[in-house]
């Protein structure tokens, strides 16, 4: 298969189809960026490219709306959640893979079983709980459901199982404490899995919508997706502003993707096929 000649018509056809397909897939991105650069007068033009590109829309979104605040809210929430998930998921994954204790199997099955519960089923009790405890409209209220994940525990446990016991025993002989064994010896062994977990947790929280939409009540507490969803109220339904706002939400994610592309795609394969 690999030895197929360059001019093979089937290979040429493959390139053509793939190129046409990627144009279709990329068109929404192109449309978004092109529109975000159009001045208001041109926004409803048939033209695909702006005749007089302007960054006015971006300036307006950043200065006249609470967009920067939403951006910061999302950043803070995604960052804290990612740190929490990375730490606790790894700790539990390690304990379940490498420590012997009564009830280990039962605890693992129980944690896995929580994966079967859909989020929608939980948002009503979460909302009632948050109302009772004053968590509505707070960072804690937005974050608490995602601070530890069963999926991450499952993933890290799989990888921790591959860490040789001899390594840990050698650490014990050297007098490393139980937490040190986890933190200094086991954790560095599962770096690729941790990287994948961190990237997915960050992206997942950056994009989270259903629960934040329910728990947030004032404009200044909105995360980026919630702010964008309710943007038409703020931006007066101006498509040029909405497109600039959408571009500002998408572009950082795409930059992260370009830099971490290999880890993200390998992570998908890693997590997807291991399930």
């Amino acid at each position: 298969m690999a030895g197929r000649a360059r001019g093979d018509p089937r290979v040429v056809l493959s390139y053509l189809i793939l190129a046409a397909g990627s144009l279709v897939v990329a068109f929404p991105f192109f449309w978004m960026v092109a529109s975000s650069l159009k001045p208001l007068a041109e926004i409803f033009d048939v033209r695909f490219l702006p005749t007089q590109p302007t960054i006015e829309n971006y300036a307006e979104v950043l200065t006249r709306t609470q967009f920067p605040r939403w951006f910061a809210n999302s950043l803070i929430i995604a960052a804290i959640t990612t740190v929490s998930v990375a730490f606790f998921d790894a700790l539990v994954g390690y304990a379940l893979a490498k420590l012997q204790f009564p009830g280990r199997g039962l605890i693992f099955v129980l944690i896995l079983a929580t994966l079967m519960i859909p989020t929608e089923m939980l948002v009503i009790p979460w909302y009632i709980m948050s109302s009772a405890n004053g968590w509505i409209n707070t960072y804690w209220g937005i974050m608490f459901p995602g601070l530890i994940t069963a999926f991450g525990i499952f993933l890290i446990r799989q990888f921790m199982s591959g860490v040789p016991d001899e390594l840990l025993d050698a650490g014990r002989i050297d007098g490393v404490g139980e937490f040190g064994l986890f933190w200094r010896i086991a954790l560095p062994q599962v770096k690729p899995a941790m990287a994948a977990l961190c990237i997915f947790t960050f992206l997942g929280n950056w994009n989270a919508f259903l629960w934040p939409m329910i728990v947030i009540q004032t404009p200044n507490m909105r995360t980026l997706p919630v702010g964008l969803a309710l943007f038409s109220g703020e931006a007066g339904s101006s498509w040029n502003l909405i497109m600039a706002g959408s571009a500002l939400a998408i572009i950082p994610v795409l930059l992260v993707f370009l830099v971490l592309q290999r880890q993200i795609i390998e992570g998908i394969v890693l997590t997807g096929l291991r399930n």
Partner: protein
Amino acid sequence: MATQVAAARPLRRGLRIGQQRALWAYLFLAVPLLFFAGIRILPAISSLYISVHEWNIVSPNRPYVGGANFQTLAADPRFARAAINTVRYVLVGIPAQMVLGLGLALLLQRIVRFRGLFRALYFMPFITPIVAASWVWQWMYSVHLGPLNKILQAVGLPAQGFLRDPGQALYAVAAMVVWQYLGFQVVIFLAGLEAIPRVYLEAAEVDGATGWRLFWRITLPLLNPTLVFSAVYSTIVYLQLFTQVLNMTFQDQGGPLASTLTLVLYVYQLGFQRFKMGEAAAATAILFVVILAITLLQMRILSKPVEY
């Protein structure tokens, strides 16, 4: 006596170390276990409890009503609409996504140069924030001002209603969801294809199998585990569609004549806009059972051993 003590000591110390390690393990697990109990398991039970009560957030009176919430749902045409639509999203979206994804993966496998570039391009929508993508698609579908109708008219085709047409809206939303998950599907299939041992394909080629025969008889059966994973994962995603639907049909929340309404959007409207928490919880209980059943069923059907 002395030897007995000497023999017992390592044993006792071993036990102590074992117990110590168990204690450490429980210490490591303490916070996460409390978390899962308090944030996942108890709320799930509480949701079932709410589903058999009349539960309005503003009223302190919450009487037990048995199956009344389920009966109200069964009698609500909007619930039936939402359930049927959700099934239609699954039946339309998943085959489209899997066929396109497999086709693209097979094409990508054929080429050497730019493979990474194409894979990255197809993958981009998967990591794009859904709300932002929904805005872009909503505008692309705009009847009078959107680029899609401009393109259609430019090639001499009639303009379409897309999200404004009750007969098309669901498919328009489904197309956006397929766009979003296609790259993910391609990556999974590409990995699955690469995991197929070369010897099988080469042996089949020696036996004279080529093209379609090779694909149907060898590649597809060997891809079975990947197909199972994709089908189960996508079904769960499609059954929980919400963000795309809410954001692409924001003004009327569920499209013209509720033609894009999904179960989760229905739950959101019932529980958080009309504050009928009991009925909303009942609807999520149904969704939970459906997801559970489909997951188990699909795994059984697709994971049947393949006969050669």
